[in-house]
């Protein structure tokens, strides 16, 4: 057994690894605003979202070697985050009510309803959109049941591709598509209920 100082090769390898680690951490931190934005809508409250993001970064920095450079780091971070969120045992929510509005009405029903409530003949779509207040949108999204909301938040808020959302949530892409379809309908039904009369 020799107790000699580390070889030059070892030193170089360690220095290389330290640089890779720093680079990883910097890249992950640059994505933190985007990660928070998604986390805030996956979690029930701001406090929960903050805890989740912090735990996600703690775990990510510990397991940084498991990340494959060149792959989607934002998706990797969200995968950790959604797993933590599920592990926390999300508050139980009532099962989604199957209403005729979200399953049978077509995709135009929200527009049709809002337009009918907007004064004036043939209003433009911007004015129709103004029937929805910011608070009502936040509430309407929060009221979408978890399974549908996770997909909706990743795709429509986080702007992830279907395939990334499937990987993050560990569900088949077909399930992403069907939940997204249903989730958007539920969101619209919730928005229709809260529209400014």
């Amino acid at each position: 057994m020799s107790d000699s100082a580390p070889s030059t090769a070892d030193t170089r390898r360690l220095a290389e690894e330290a640089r890779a680690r720093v680079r990883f951490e910097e890249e992950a931190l640059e994505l933190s605003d985007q990660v928070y934005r998604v986390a805030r809508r996956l979690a029930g409250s701001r406090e929960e979202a903050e805890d989740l993001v912090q735990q996600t970064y703690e775990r990510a920095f510990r397991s940084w070697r498991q990340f494959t450079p060149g792959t989607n780091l934002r998706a990797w971070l969200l995968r950790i985050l959604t797993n933590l969120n599920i592990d926390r045992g999300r508050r139980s929510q009532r099962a989604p009510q199957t209403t005729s509005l979200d399953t049978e009405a077509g995709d135009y029903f929200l527009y049709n309803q809002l337009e009918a409530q907007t004064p004036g003949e043939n209003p433009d779509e911007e004015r129709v959109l103004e029937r929805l207040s910011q608070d009502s949108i936040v509430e309407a999204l929060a009221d979408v049941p978890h399974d549908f909301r996770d997909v909706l938040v990743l795709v429509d808020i986080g702007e992830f591709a279907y395939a990334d959302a499937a990987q993050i949530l560990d569900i088949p892409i077909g399930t992403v598509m069907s939940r997204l379809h249903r989730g958007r309908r539920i969101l619209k039904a919730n928005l229709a209920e809260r529209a400014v009369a």
Partner: protein
Amino acid sequence: MSGDCDKCEEMMQPFIDGVLSDAEVREAEEHLERCAWCAKRYRFEERLRHYVRVAVSEPMPPELKAKLAALRTEL
């Protein structure tokens, strides 16, 4: 409004998601050129997605940002 409008309505979400085939995109676009009724609803939907994204976006609290930065490895 016609039967074509029903078809156009079905294609709206995948159209905006950019997952339709080239032929389907052409079919939807041809209808939208002729049908102001559907065109308006497509525009509304695109604006709605953007509007929702902006409405629910909350900036990260600065304290959290500082906490995350503190997790970095000390060199």
